[in-house]
């Protein structure tokens, strides 16, 4: 029995034999190489979807929101479902980049860059839905409190929909700043080793003239820490405010006080699923398995099983409160129109995907299985989409008056719009994966000598020595 320098639970975060230069080669290399066939195919499909989305939205703007299958009873359908779904997905990126930074979780380093990129693209997609839902979208600037000739007539600061405008735009701006300030040093790395003139010029612009001066690094560290500190409550506030869109209303099924924590947990849950989907493909195609290790995948699966279980508890709490509150309307919404009734199937898809299936991640073997993780990530994404659909549509399609009861299915422009945001998201992601360093190079170098495989190996020599001598030596380091 020998003393261990570090707990065996701390797996290396970077596998293989690496030095600083090798890290640069591995991560910057794919940017300098020609993209493969798969990349072109993927980009082509994404751009096609994006074009179809643009067509669907143009159709909607030309004819009005009437082309969507919405009516007076079901005023929100796929559009707002997709909005909440995309915003939620964004949350995992901020959780990884900000909250895990404050908690000093070393494993975030391998995945934070791609996760933050995902956040930004997801919020871009989310933002489309409320904007185009406005119908007369050329009036969209009315949501801003600017001095106008109508009084000036100001916006209603009491409205959660207006809070959303501020929350989403702040979230997008702050995420973008956080992401880009982290990218500056890595763009400088690409610039300094560029072989072609064009690349040197373009990455020169993108890197803002970063040199790696010690003073600049000192300020950069301070900036990252404060931005992380700001983003942490920000990310919690964003989905809280999104949940207020529902919770401050008087619709049975919506006006519950459990919504903010329930929405935030759901957001992180779905976001991590999307991170898994993207990174499992990215690490394989770009050959980054030594940086996004199976340990990283397992850590994220642990977050998925935790948040999935929180979401499960929230579902059960809702059901309990619907009965315990003694409110007829609340009870009917949950037990007759949500868990049963014509849209009841969507409730059970949600329950299966979000609560039952993630429980496989209690088993270590499953958490460390790439194929299981990938399939689960898709299932969770589907489940979380249905959660929003269930909350929105099953609360609306059975109104107080049975004469206005209806069924809801989307029309083609609604589906086209949703597919279009996939196009937008993946077009951005493909371009990111090709032209941006998908892993934070400087941050990996920073942790390399404490968490790199070959550096950890060096400790074995000391550990196999006599315990007393080892303890004595360590005490003097």
């Amino acid at each position, binding site marked *: 029995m020998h003393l261990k320098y570090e707990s065996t639970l701390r797996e290396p975060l970077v596998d293989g034999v690496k030095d600083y230069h090798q890290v640069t080669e591995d991560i910057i290399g794919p940017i300098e190489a020609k993209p493969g066939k798969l990349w072109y195919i993927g980009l082509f499909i994404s751009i096609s979807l994006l074009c179809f989305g643009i067509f669907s939205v143009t159709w909607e703007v030309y004819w009005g929101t009437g082309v969507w299958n919405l009516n007076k009873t079901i005023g929100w359908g796929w559009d707002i479902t997709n909005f909440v779904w995309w915003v939620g997905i964004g949350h995992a990126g901020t959780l990884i980049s900000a909250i895990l930074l404050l908690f000093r979780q070393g494993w975030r380093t391998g995945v934070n860059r791609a996760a933050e990129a995902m956040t930004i693209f997801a919020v871009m997609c989310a933002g489309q839905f409320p904007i185009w839902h406005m119908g007369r979208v050329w009036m969209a600037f009315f949501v801003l409190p600017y001095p106008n000739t109508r009084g000036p007539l100001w916006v209603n*600061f009491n409205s959660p929909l207006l809070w959303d405008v501020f929350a989403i735009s702040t979230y997008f701006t702050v995420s973008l700043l956080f992401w880009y300030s982290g990218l500056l040093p890595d763009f400088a790395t690409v610039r300094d080793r560029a072989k072609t003139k064009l690349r040197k010029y373009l990455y020169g612009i993108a890197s803002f003239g970063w040199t790696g001066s*010690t003073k600049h690094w000192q300020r950069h560290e301070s900036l990252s820490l404060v*931005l992380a500190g700001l983003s942490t409550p920000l990310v919690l506030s964003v989905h809280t405010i999104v949940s207020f869109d529902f919770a401050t209303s008087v619709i049975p099924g919506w006006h519950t006080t459990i919504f903010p924590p329930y929405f935030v947990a759901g957001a992180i849950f779905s976001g991590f699923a999307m991170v898994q989907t993207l990174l499992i493909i990215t690490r394989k195609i770009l050959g980054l398995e030594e940086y996004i290790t199976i340990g990283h995948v397992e850590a994220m699966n642990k977050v998925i099983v935790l948040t999935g279980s929180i979401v499960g508890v929230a579902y059960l709490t809702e059901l309990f409160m619907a009965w315990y509150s003694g409110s007829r309307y609340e009870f009917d919404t949950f037990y007759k129109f949500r868990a049963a009734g014509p849209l009841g199937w969507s409730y059970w898809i949600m329950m299966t995907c979000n609560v039952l299936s993630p429980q496989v991640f209690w088993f270590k073997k499953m958490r460390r299985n790439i194929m299981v993780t990938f399939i689960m990530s898709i299932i969770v994404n589907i489940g979380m989409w249905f959660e929003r659909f269930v909350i929105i549509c099953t609360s609306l399609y059975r109104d107080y008056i049975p004469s206005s009861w209806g069924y809801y299915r989307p029309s083609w422009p609604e589906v086209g719009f949703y597919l279009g945001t996939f196009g937008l998201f993946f077009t951005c992601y493909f371009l990111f994966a090709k032209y941006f360093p998908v892993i934070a190079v400087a941050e990996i170098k920073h942790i390399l000598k404490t968490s790199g495989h070959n550096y950890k190996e060096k400790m074995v020599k000391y550990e196999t020595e006599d315990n007393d001598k080892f303890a004595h030596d360590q005490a003097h380091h």
Partner: protein
Amino acid sequence: MAVKKFVVGSFDDEAVLFPAVKKVRSAGYKIHDVYTPFPVHGLDHAMGLRETSLHTAGFIYGITGTTTALSFMSWVFTTDWPMNIGGKPHFPLPAFIPITFELTVLFAAVGMVMTFMYLCQLAPFVKKHVFHPRQSDDLFVMVIELTEKTRAEEVKAYLDSVGAKEINEQEVEAGWWLGRFDREDKLFSQRTTPVNA
């Protein structure tokens, strides 16, 4: 902008760099800067740099956001155009909290990033001299400015003795500060005392 002469020494290990920085400083040479591919903790202290106050600036921007949001919404709802919205109070403080919080974060983040960019003189199309192309890859590059009192050969020999792997001499314009970098310094070519005297 001043073109100056520098002796550039590159190190390949931060464990060698640290004592080297201390020795060079105590020998009295003027370290222009040390360029590293990633933040090396403690290097700023070793170089004798003071702590940054960027976070204090962030706090000030933050409270500016708080007051802007609170005072603007209060003014609109109580003074400029008091409206009856479902009989709710004209000054609903709880309803102001979300936007107040968001603007606090927005002001703090945007303000800090702008300040950071100003202080470090970073912007698109800004081009700065790179002393060694591998300073953003795997080398730690110590740049020593030659003054009237230092001789290049002596500095080179000293850098070699403290463990620099690659040493050279460069005569460049190292940086600028909105056009007034080192205003008090004379151009290298205009100095009366030759450097290698």
